[in-house]
């Protein structure tokens, strides 16, 4: 192992290229730990949200969650994100089979679905602003809502940038032992974002609609 | 619970500890010289926990000293290698189990007292409507850096000096007008935070001896946190009743006899009334209520209440309490006018009852309501003490 060629070569990849090197294993494990921390982060935000849900004090604009949320759009958003999680699974499936082109194709679809989700979210937020004056500063409920959903949205943006950067960087040289772990953990991140959204959909929107 | 503690306290260690600790501090500040129901309960627990802990410390330190003396490497032993012991299951079990037992012993009274101290529903416990009506609630509001006390349904408001009757649970509802403060009268009871907004707290205080007790703000609240002192003036029930009825009479319209003070009153009404109320004010004022200012134990909780100090305060409150809300929010009067206002403020003595009545040994029973005779009043009181003692035993 006196040169780096074998790490950067696209030939003769092992079955699980993402975990074949020590660096890859470390990244894989470290990222799981990181996601553990992220879980606490979102748990704290969920806790804050639940404590401040529909809490307006003397705020001027006070639309309770039942009137605020419309489930149709949110349902579409959920579908976008859930599907994108599935497509990223396909991408990783092809990575394990060393089919770089198909992996890129499915990653591309994942990114498109993510963008669609983001577009919906931006529309949703502007809708709340124009129709209900429900903003980050309008009340404690507003602050808590945008902090939680906004943090998730920021994660989506970061995840998209990350996946796109990886795709662009490696478009020409294909899969190797060096970039396989990078692809793999970016897809882990994407799954995590998806799981968080499932909770947001349930806790914020469904429970918000019910009461 | 008290009887149980009484027996417990006779234990030598507890007795010695109590003797040692009760020498500590000023009798009107120290938590170690309890003169209230809550403080006594906290103190009892302190003694139990301290006794257990002293026991633990003695054992550990004894082992420690033996080890340090016996097992030092002496000259010529440099090459000696002691036996490499891995552990000992018996020993390890012992020092796991014994602490568990000790903590269980401690946990039981902890939980009991936690619930006992959280009693804040006197109306629900009252036997009849009359007793329920007798319950005294005081709404305490903390603001940077002073205290407001409103006697609920009695139309009495005061600041800084909190008058309470002795030998009776007085219920306080604690809230804040700005940041979080904490209401603490160490000699009478442990502390409770005053939170802004919806998170209001309730607790009871019960002074068992007359006296003028120091109260502190115990939650850091800004520059003058350390100067946010107040006094609890615990007077006998009769004196308290008189104080309440005197305070109910007080009004901002009463004109003082002295001409200088009368001029001061005019100035006060012109410039100070916007923030400082005299007489009962239903809402918490911008500044402290000054109804009984002339009888205040201290000026602003910290200085001697003299004309000189009052004038200084009016001219430059910042030099007394940095960061107070008054500085910069009023037109500073001339020194002469300030003197007149001070003169007026010192005449505000609506009641005969003052801090001195808490210091004398005179104990006046509450006037019996309606036709009941004094003897009867005494018996009812005894009964109620017995009852509460019984209640406590039941809780055990």
């Amino acid at each position: 192992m006196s040169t780096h060629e074998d790490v950067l070569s696209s030939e003769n990849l092992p079955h699980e290229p993402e975990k074949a090197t020590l660096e890859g294993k470390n990244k894989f494990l470290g990222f799981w730990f990181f996601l553990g921390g992220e879980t606490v982060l979102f748990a704290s935000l969920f806790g804050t949200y639940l404590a401040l849900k529909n809490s307006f004090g003397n705020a001027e604009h006070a639309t309770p969650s039942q009137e605020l949320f419309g489930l149709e759009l949110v349902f579409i958003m959920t579908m976008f994100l859930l599907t994108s999680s599935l497509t990223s699974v396909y991408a990783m499936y092809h990575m394990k089979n060393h089919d770089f082109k198909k992996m890129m194709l499915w990653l591309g679809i994942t990114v498109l679905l993510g963008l669609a989700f983001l577009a919906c979210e931006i529309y949703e937020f502007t809708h709340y602003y124009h129709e209900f004056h429900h903003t980050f500063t309008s009340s404690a409920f507003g602050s808590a809502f945008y902090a939680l959903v906004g943090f998730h949205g920021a994660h989506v943006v970061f995840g998209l940038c990350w996946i796109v950067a990886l795709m662009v960087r490696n478009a020409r040289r294909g899969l190797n032992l060096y970039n396989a772990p990078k692809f793999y953990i970016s897809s882990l991140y994407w799954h995590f974002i998806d799981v968080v959204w499932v909770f947001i959909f349930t806790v914020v929107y469904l429970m918000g609609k019910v009461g | 619970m008290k009887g149980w503690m009484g027996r417990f306290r006779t234990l030598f260690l507890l007795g010695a500890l109590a003797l040692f600790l009760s020498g500590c501090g000023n009798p009107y500040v120290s938590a170690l010289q309890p003169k209230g129901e809550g403080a006594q309960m906290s103190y009892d627990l302190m003694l139990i926990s301290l006794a257990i802990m002293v026991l633990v410390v003695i054992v550990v330190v004894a082992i420690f000293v033996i080890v340090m003396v016996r097992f030092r490497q002496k000259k010529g032993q440099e090459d000696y290698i002691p036996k490499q012991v891995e552990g000992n299951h018996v020993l390890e079990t012992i020092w796991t189990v014994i602490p568990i037992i000790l903590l269980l012993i401690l946990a039981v009274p902890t939980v009991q007292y936690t619930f006992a101290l959280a009693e804040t529903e006197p109306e629900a416990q009252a036997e009849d409507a009359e007793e329920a009506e007798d319950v005294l609630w005081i709404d305490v509001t903390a603001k940077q850096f002073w205290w407001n006390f409103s006697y609920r349904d009695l139309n009495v408001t005061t600041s800084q000096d909190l008058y309470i009757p002795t030998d009776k649970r007085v219920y306080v509802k604690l809230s804040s007008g700005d940041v979080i403060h904490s209401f603490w009268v160490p000699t009478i009871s442990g502390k409770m935070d005053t939170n802004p907004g919806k998170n209001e707290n309730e607790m009871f205080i019960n002074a068992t001896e007359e006296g003028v007790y120091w109260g502190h703000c115990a939650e850091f609240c800004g520059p003058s946190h350390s100067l946010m002192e107040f006094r609890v003036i615990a007077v006998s029930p009769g004196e308290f009743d008189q104080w309440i009825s005197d305070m109910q009479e007080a009004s901002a319209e009463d004109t003082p006899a002295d001409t200088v003070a009368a001029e001061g009153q005019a100035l006060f009404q012109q410039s100070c009334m916007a923030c400082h109320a005299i007489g009962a004010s239903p809402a918490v004022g911008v500044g402290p209520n000054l109804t009984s200012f002339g009888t205040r134990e201290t000026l602003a909780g910290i200085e001697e209440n003299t004309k000189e100090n009052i004038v200084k305060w009016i001219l430059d409150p910042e030099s007394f309490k940095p960061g107070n809300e008054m500085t910069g929010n009023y037109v500073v009067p001339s020194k002469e006018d300030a003197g007149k206002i001070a003169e007026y403020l010192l005449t505000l003595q609506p009641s005969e009852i003052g801090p001195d009545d808490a210091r004398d040994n005179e104990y006046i029973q509450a006037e019996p309501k309606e036709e009941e005779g004094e003897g009867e009043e005494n018996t009812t009181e005894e009964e109620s003490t017995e009852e509460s003692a019984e209640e406590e035993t039941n809780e055990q």
Partner: protein
Amino acid sequence: MSTATAKKRGFGSVLWDYLTTVDHKKIASLYLIGGGFFFLLGGLEALLIRLQLMYPENALIGAQFYNEVFTMHGTTMIFLAAMPLLFALMNAVMPLQIGARDVAFPFINALGFWLFLFGGILLNLSWFLGGAPDAGWTSYAPLSIYSPGHGVDFYAIGLQISGFGTLMGGINFLVTIVTMRAPGMTYMRMPLFTWTTFVASVLILFAFPALTVGIFLLTFDRLFGAQFFEATMGGNEIIWEHLFWIFGHPEVYILILPAFGIFSEIIPVFSKKRLFGYSSMVFATVLIAFLGFMVWAHHMFTTGMGPVANSIFAVATMAIAIPTGIKIFNWLLTMWGGKIRLTSPMLWSAAFIPSFLLGGVTGVMLAVAPADFQYHDSYFVVAHFHYVIVGGVVFGILAGVTYWWPLMFGKVLDEKLSKWTFWTFFTGFHLTFFIQHFLGLMGMPRRYWTYLEGQEFETGNFISTIGAFLMGVGTIILLYNIIKTSVSGEKCTRDPWDGRTLEWSLPIPTPHYNFKQLPLVRGLDALWIEKTQGNGKMIPAEPVDDIHMPNNSILPFVISLGLFIAGLGVIYRVDSNAAYIAIIVGFVLTFGSMLVRSVKDDLGHHIHKEDLEKEGAEVE
């Protein structure tokens, strides 16, 4: 690579080397210097506090300034002194103890350090930019929201940046310990310091995100008009207390567990005995960490949570005394039957036991909720946590630094001076804090700028101040010792204390790849086993071969610098639009560097077998 070339280099290249280093040993030195600097700063702040409280109604410093000083004392000591100093020891020792050539994420390790440093600098810049934070290290809302000026903004942004660094450091340690142990180094053969590093890192991982969120909310409220803590707009200030203590209580264990680890290394070495009850020590460590997450609300007994919550948290808190007690007895029994050498590291460790014991028993007393109504926010609490944090953590750090100083810097600190430091610091410590228990019980609340006459607080406070200065003297002696040893101390080459663990099997100075051949570990106290059953040297687990090492990089520094600049921009955004330039520049630097890191291949380099054999010949 070799030491010979290192000596020839000028100041500029040494500086560049440290700015770009990813070597855990050099990062350890950086942490030590950074943490040490902030420790001195926090100490000066402590002396100011004690001077102000020396007399009743003293007006040496103003109320506002006093509040800034004690806020910064607490914040600095916890986040910028104690944690970095422990990180210094973890970085210096842990990889060597498990027989690793490096940490799992050298780049992230460096990033963690630079984030801590820039966060700390940002926080302390507040002194020169209109006043430091003044809401206490706990920064309870809404006081922290209403606090005028930018002080609390510096607190929020500074801690946020250094908090990211801590989180990354924690993840790095975790992965290193899981994946990079030498052959034969099973979990139950790991030295206790490695174990406590592992457990403390788990705590960091799960506790710090709560602080991150808390600080975000604080920042949003102060700088972006959010209403989380504003009661009139529906906000709830108690959320801050919960978030802060969900982080804050595990934080105590993040600090104390590594200190426990240090003592568990030193006591066996200087008693010449294996650690008594190793497995129960490991078990106790894990149990403390686990319980540490369910007791946060014992900081809030007086908040008004009601008797049910208070009782639950009281009993849960008491439970922590059990594993801690197990540890104390294990240490005592390790010494029992041993041959104790009272060197300075051992003095600190021995003194730790009774000192920490007092902090521990007052901890149980504080758990008794109804009694805590009296203790809470009084000097009793101040005494308690200083007994735990100074008597535990600071003693541990000083013990560890003296013990591992030769490993890090190739010289043993002057023993005589070290013992002077010990005796002055130890005496000063008890003089300062023991009396504070009584001050609290006598009714003195904490965070008081001054106290009125006539409450009988005078004597206690005066004694306390004298003690504080004695601690100051001890620290000055330590500084003098460090300078003296660096200038004229004798070099040591290997294992000065007759150590038992792997780090002492290495030559001093340790080569940057640590182990030429990875060692084979045959049991707990790997080196001791070889000393008593072998020839005193570790058995290699592999033939000499090429060693793969990471490349240096300036990116961690730039990423942190970017966040620092952006942080300043965020703070001043409300004052001037020009601040947006800083925000943009900062984030471009940060995210730009991250992008560079992501797209640029960084495969590290190899040290060739032939060079290793040559160097090996030189050393022998």
